């Protein structure tokens, strides 16, 4: 698979209006790729992520998104995602259409998408108000027992972007640690971009580890530190203090916009972004 630079991969594979999933459950969140989407001013995206996290807070606040499919939208252990809230509560910087799931439901939707089934089924959405606000959740009867089940429309992103620890030169990708629904989101997508910490000549055999074979990956990108302030197990830790600081940075529109201008828009690439943060620390 072609090895690309990040600006090349985003420039050629992420289009205006696309349905885009940046996955990675707390671990391996592709921050560098999200920042590059902001730099390249992609608009009207339908963003999909189980936990929008800081990266979608930033993309929403910078006006990249028209819609969001998600299942838990907070700053983990800290509180609100203020830019997400501002978009929902005050339509700033633009209205954001929500497609809201539970974790189990969104996971089932990715699994169905990965298998190219039209919907996933689960014994979920029982006696709550979520189904009534999300047309992607319906009821179906089991054809064998007649029992009522929840059906969730499959999610097939135009492009899924992951961050992983390692790829080899052919583009096979190895992930270890918490994997969330990363594999399902990738296999559900039309195009797959993976940014990685390192590229090696050959991956060690790993029979049961999570590997995306090279022919399901559209582009691999060498991007050290690409998940920071999230983390890459074995490479660097989650910067919990940054997640706590984000609460203050993101609370105010002007402070947020200044931070994004200084640290994302005015930085050339992810290396410059990290250099800037290190200098400011």
């Amino acid at each position, binding site marked *: 698979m072609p090895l690309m630079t990040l600006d090349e991969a985003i420039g050629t594979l992420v289009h205006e209006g696309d349905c885009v999933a940046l996955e990675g*459950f*707390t*671990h391996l969140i592709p921050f560098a790729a999200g920042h590059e989407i902001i730099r390249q001013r992609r608009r009207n995206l339908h963003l999909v992520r*189980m*936990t929008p996290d800081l990266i979608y807070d930033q993309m929403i606040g910078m006006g990249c998104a028209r819609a969001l499919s998600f*299942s*838990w*939208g*907070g700053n*983990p*252990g*800290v509180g*609100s*995602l203020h830019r997400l*809230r501002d978009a*929902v*509560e005050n339509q700033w910087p633009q209205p954001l259409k929500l497609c809201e799931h*539970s*974790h*189990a439901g969104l*996971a*089932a939707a990715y*699994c169905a998408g990965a298998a190219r089934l039209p919907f996933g089924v*689960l*014994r*979920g959405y*029982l*006696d*709550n108000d*979520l189904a009534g*606000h999300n047309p992607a959740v319906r009821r179906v009867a089991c054809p064998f027992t007649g029992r*009522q089940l929840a059906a969730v429309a499959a999610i097939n992103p135009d492009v899924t972007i992951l961050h992983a620890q390692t790829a080899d030169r052919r583009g096979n990708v190895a992930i270890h640690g*918490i*994997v*969330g*629904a990363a594999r*399902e989101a990738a296999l559900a997508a039309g195009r797959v971009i993976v940014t990685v910490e390192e590229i090696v000549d050959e991956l060690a055999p790993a029979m049961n580890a*999570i590997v995306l074979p090279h022919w399901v990956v559209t582009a691999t990108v060498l*991007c*050290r*530190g690409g998940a920071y302030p999230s983390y*890459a*197990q074995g*490479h*660097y*830790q*989650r*910067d*919990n*203090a940054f*997640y*706590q600081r984000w609460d203050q940075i993101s609370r105010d529109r002007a402070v947020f916009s200044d931070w994004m201008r200084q640290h994302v828009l005015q930085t050339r690439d*992810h*290396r*410059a972004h*990290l*250099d800037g*943060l*290190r200098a400011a*620390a």
Partner: protein
Amino acid sequence: MNCTPDEYMTVAAARLLQGSQVCFVGIGLPSAACNLARLTHAPDLVLIYESGTIGTRPTVLPLSIGDGELALTATCVVPLPEVFSHYLQAGRVDVGFLGAAQIDRYGNLNTTVIGPYDAPHTRLPGAGGAPEIAAHARQTFVMLRATTRSCVEKLDFRTSAGYLDGHGARARSAAPGLGPRALITDFGMLAPHPLDDELQLSALFEGVSRDQARAAVGWPLRCADDVAAIAPPTAAELAVLRDLQQRTREAHQRPVSIPLG
């Protein structure tokens, strides 16, 4: 023993966990309570976090549900779809431990919005794993600091089902789990009435009156025939909890080195 209401409720919640129960753990107060239980009277508890970490034994409390600490100390780490389908939905979880922004008198939970869904006054984080944990765990415990805004007559949005409209409605529903068996608050505990499922006062912390409990709850709170007294945290329980919290604070504030690009 001098302690804060948060410490009292964390210790009271921890004491509810026993033996080798399998607990699906929410972040925040539930995570503190489950780990306190594991570090004191119930070392064989199996803790599952929705990030797919099974049998995890963290030395500090995670800030997020997917901190590396949880993976490094887990028996195994499975993909997230598997945790919800093959473990939770398959009936392999004994206790679901949840928090919420709002609870009503029948133990239904709201973590979605305050105000109307399409024009919310306050947009809350949303469902996460809670709706299916509330449905499938054999029983659930809920932890919530009680105020008339959090313990309400009527929810703005029902994210996770408790006893629905009471009077056996949940038992007649498709949910396999028993529902919320205890609400642990900062004044004591509420438990469902055996006939109509309404949460009523079942136990009080030392030094708290029934009137104080009634004032903190937004529906006319009834009392069980026998309201128990919850013994204050012991010196040993408090020492373990404070030690855990201190280690956690230090770990979360410790500067990490920003990776080189």
